[in-house]
């Protein structure tokens, strides 16, 4: 017999049965869109259309519409790229690393977090395409035989590594997420009342029937997928950081970058998961599945990774001074006290100071505090990338070419595009797919439920307790 350990706080409240889990999660998928959803979707879609116009103009007219100059050649584009990739990392961390660590609280949040990963990586990839200026030539980044005497891509370059890292990351995340969805899609298929949804969910559930042999293999491949996704996610942001670290620009040429970027990625990603889940939780009435325990656990990770990031900032400064290299020292002093001081201090305040508030149990269990601080963390993490990129570039070796960067409406519009894309996709996901992994939650009900109902199975949709109507009974 399983007994809930009194030391651990429950992860599912309200004495849910298996049938309750199905009903609570499927309700959103099967019902008509709510008013809140429709309003949110319309807003996101309008934002997406505005952003698409900006992106179109950027491509049509060329990168001259951005505020770049010959000193600052990377600015919001790569800032946004790194920011979105970083946000994506939390989904993989939750679904893969927390699976390897057998952290049960992942089960209620992994589905939405992985969806967030996929959409965030799409947003990130859109900035890669944008910053190429001529996106129709994006395939030049692939090692293809070509018309120029088969001159190949340079495999020594982290930018080429990035092509492989991001595309592998996107593909593997998508596969991992989709495989996680298959059993739940089968649940929706088997409850479906309309022919159309039975057909669509039937096709996407791949004929899943939940046989013991299938489950055994399924669990095995989930474990391996988690096992390979863990080093993969670490490699992705490591490689992103090497885009900078392998250059010789003071402020970029830093060996601390890989772990520092990975910690920052998880930090901002968890903040974004908090923002998304806190809203989903209320709108879809999922308070019994996404409990204060979940919110608190994620806030602890935010505090941990935020502290790692803080230590990294200070270490960077120390090493810049300790190196004795005057250019390195200048780059860092210029960050802190130069014309972009406000960006630097915004980063320091948002990323280093604000997550420390989560040491208070009251604050880390408060929905309002968590939401506000998560927004602040993501603002801070955007500024971190801006600080690294722009302040390292804008005062280069020749003072005669020193410059400032100011964004144009297309820098801003292209950033807005990514928000439109992200939220449109996320809202579509939230409406048409189960936002919580039903089968994984059912699997932890026994060990992690607040109180077990008398019959853990419950009553399925369309079934009455006394007379089973599904099949002919054997007399």
């Amino acid at each position, binding site marked *: *017999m399983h007994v809930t350990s009194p030391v651990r706080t429950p992860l599912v409240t309200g004495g849910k*049965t*298996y049938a309750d889990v*199905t009903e609570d999660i499927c309700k959103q998928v099967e019902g008509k869109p709510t008013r809140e959803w429709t309003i949110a979707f319309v807003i996101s879609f309008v934002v997406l259309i505005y952003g698409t116009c900006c992106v179109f103009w950027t491509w049509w007219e060329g990168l001259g519409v951005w505020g770049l100059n010959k000193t600052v050649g990377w600015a919001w584009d790569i800032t946004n790229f790194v920011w979105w990739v970083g946000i994506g990392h939390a989904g993989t961390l939750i679904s893969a690393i927390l699976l390897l660590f057998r952290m049960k609280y992942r089960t209620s949040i992994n589905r939405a977090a992985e969806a967030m990963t996929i959409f965030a990586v799409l947003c990130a990839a859109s900035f890669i395409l944008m910053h190429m200026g001529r996106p129709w030539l994006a395939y030049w980044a692939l*090692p293809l035989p070509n018309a120029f005497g*088969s001159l*190949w891509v340079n*495999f*020594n370059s982290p930018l080429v590594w990035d092509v*492989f*890292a991001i595309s*592998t990351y996107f*593909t*593997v995340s998508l*596969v*991992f997420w989709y*495989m996680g969805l*298959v*059993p739940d899609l*089968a*649940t929706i*298929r*088997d*409850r479906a009342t309309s022919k159309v949804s039975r057909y669509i969910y*039937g*096709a996407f*559930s*791949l*004929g*899943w*029937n*939940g*046989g*013991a*042999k299938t*489950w*055994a*293999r399924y669990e*095995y*491949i989930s474990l*391996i*997928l988690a096992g*390979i*996704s863990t*080093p993969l996610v670490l*490699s992705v942001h490591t490689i992103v950081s090497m885009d900078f670290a392998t250059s010789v620009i003071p402020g970029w040429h830093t060996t601390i970058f890989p772990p520092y970027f990975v910690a920052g990625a998880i930090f901002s990603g968890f903040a974004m998961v908090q923002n998304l889940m806190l809203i989903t939780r209320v709108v879809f009435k999922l308070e019994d599945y996404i409990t204060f325990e979940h919110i608190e656990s994620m806030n602890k990770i935010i505090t941990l990774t935020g502290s790692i990031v803080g230590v990294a900032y200070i270490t960077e400064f120390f090493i810049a001074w300790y190196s004795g290299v005057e250019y390195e020292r200048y780059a860092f002093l210029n960050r802190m006290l130069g014309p972009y001081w406000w960006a630097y201090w915004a980063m320091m305040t948002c990323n280093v100071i604000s997550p420390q508030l989560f040491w208070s149990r009251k604050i880390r269990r408060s929905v309002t505090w968590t939401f506000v601080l998560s927004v602040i963390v993501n603002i801070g993490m955007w500024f971190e990338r801006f600080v690294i990129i722009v302040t390292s570039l804008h005062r280069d070796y020749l003072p005669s070419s020193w410059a400032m960067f100011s964004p144009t409406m297309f820098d801003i519009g292209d950033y807005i595009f990514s928000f439109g894309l992200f939220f449109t996709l996320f809202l579509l996901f939230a409406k048409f797919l189960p936002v919580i992994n*039903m089968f*994984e939650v*059912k699997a932890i009900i*026994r060990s992690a439920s607040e109180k077990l109902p008398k*019959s*853990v*199975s419950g*009553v399925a949709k369309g079934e009455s307790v006394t007379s*089973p109507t*599904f*099949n*002919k*009974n*054997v007399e």
Partner: protein
Amino acid sequence: MSHHNDSAKFLVGVYDDDEVVLKAVTEVKSAGVRIHEVYTPFPIHGLDVALGHPRTRIGIAAFLFGLTGFLTMVSLTYYTMGYDWPMIIGGKDNYAYPAYIPVMFELTVLFTALGMVGTFLVSNGLGPTVKPLMFDLRSTDNKFVMAIDLSKNRQSEVEIASVLRASGAAEVNVKQF
């Protein structure tokens, strides 16, 4: 899905509880009844062992796919950087393999994931056009369903039904495909 002929007749025990069905597997087997398969809404640890399913070898497939990905990138980097258009970059060897480790790793992961998941789908007969054999639609919701192929058992329908009930089945139904 028609490897069962039209006359395939199954007895379906429906259980309310995952712990009961796990014990029931042993009880039904020791009563001499051959179980076709047990269908559950979520994985129950030890169920495949109780049913006597062999341990999956999909890990071997995953390893081989990973190895293929790794060797593909070793070959590609060697061919492009070391053989077809060698360049000296930073005074290093043409084939400066430490710089290629990231891409080798990525392709290893990519091939492992896609190959393993593909193998999984093929070996379980899963695909977008597959119509599943559902013994009870509630087995993807809240019920645990044990299917007994009557043609593969010597006991009578009634005998098996009573074994299933004794093992804790809340319902025993007939399902014909």
